[in-house]
């Protein structure tokens, strides 16, 4: 791979990462309207086409929990301890606001793309 195409790939990967970051938070919060533990959450996101690795998901869950958007508890299921997450009341309120914002951005972007 030439230096130019490598640099272009790097730029694309960085921009993709930036684009994904906000979307992932929204997807995780939406999925956690239903209580889930880490692995099932990852699987649910993956089934819907949004792959996320352990190293990204668990720090994100911790951050959202520390911001008061999620609540979690360790519980035994199938003879194994699992940490279950779900949206907190604050998280539900914020999610509604974020979804509204997402709709607004989406509408604007569609309009811009149509004009281009």
């Amino acid at each position: 791979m030439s230096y130019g195409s490598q640099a272009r790939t790097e730029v694309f990967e960085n921009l993709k990462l930036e684009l994904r970051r906000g979307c992932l938070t929204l997807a995780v919060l939406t999925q956690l309207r239903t209580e889930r533990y880490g692995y099932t959450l990852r699987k649910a996101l993956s089934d819907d086409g949004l792959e996320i690795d352990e190293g990204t998901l668990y720090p994100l869950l911790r951050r959202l929990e520390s911001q008061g958007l999620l609540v979690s508890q360790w519980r035994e299921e199938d003879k194994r301890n699992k940490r279950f997450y779900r949206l907190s009341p604050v998280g539900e309120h914020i999610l509604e606001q974020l979804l509204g914002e997402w709709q607004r951005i989406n509408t604007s972007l569609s309009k811009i793309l149509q004009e281009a």
Partner: protein
Amino acid sequence: MSTSSSRNPLELVDRYLQAVRFWLPKTGRQEDLLAELGEDLRSQIEDKESELGHALGQDDISEILKRCGAPMLVASRLGPRRHLIGPTLFPVYEFVLKMVLLWILVPVFIFIVGPATLASTNGDWGKTVLVTIGNLWSGAFVAAGIITLVFAILERTHAIADMACTWDPSSLPPLQKPERKTSFVHTMCELAFNVFGLVWLLLVPNHPFLILGPAAAFLKLGTIWHTFYVPVVLLTVAVIVRLAVTLARSQWTAFPLWSQLLQTAASLILVHYMIQAAGYTVHGDWHPFVTIADGLSRSEQYVRFTKIAAIVNVALLISLVCTWVGLCIGGAVQLWELLKHIRKNRSVSQQPASVQLR
């Protein structure tokens, strides 16, 4: 290989978690994170087993762990984002490091430590350069280490970030004047002065009065003058050519900078050898720059002439040493200007066209 395959394949997961634990920061969250990661891995294994309909072997588990990533990498992703010096403080750190290393340490070593070493090695230049570079190297390491340590402490204590919150816009430095092209008048004057200097130099061998004044009656030019006359004339010609090119090609913005640096380097070498040559004595006499004219050895005023010659020689030697120091400082400033120009050009060429047009 055979010993590990005989063990329970799930033991590999525990070994993996143990390796991740080693790299994770020892905080209260460590066990929590590991338990959650372990649970995720076991769920993946369980899922795969139910998909295949049989228990996974060591190779299958290895594949899952490989996909998860190397323990150190996983720990770095799971743990809190940590840095010795963060992005807020880093530009200040970089600035201080450059200031201390380039503008304090290097000049101190060139102008103080170097000459002191030269004196202690009895004028052995090779040994002096080696010892000075060695000391500079270790000094730079220590200075960089101390600066890094201080900034790491500032990062931890958020001292600069707190200061940055209380900044006052009126304390901002005044606007810098835009960079001007080399002044035409300045270059013209320099060219005229150098042409005059060249004519003067060419006339001096036949008219020593031009350099010695009335003392030409009893003094004549010494050996150094004859040895270095041609290089000095050539250097003056080179300076005239440089100035002429600068005038003719004013769009070559980098040319005046690097050509001046080259000129300074050449002058520095020439002055260095002149000083070195001035150290030699001929038949026990020290008359490097001027000596007593022929046929005056029996003159009644011979002693007086000798004293005058000695004073002139010492004065010229001191002037040369001062010139050497001045050229060193000038060269450092010119080098800095050239680097600044290169960096500025590079940053302009890397900017998008929209920004360059502003």
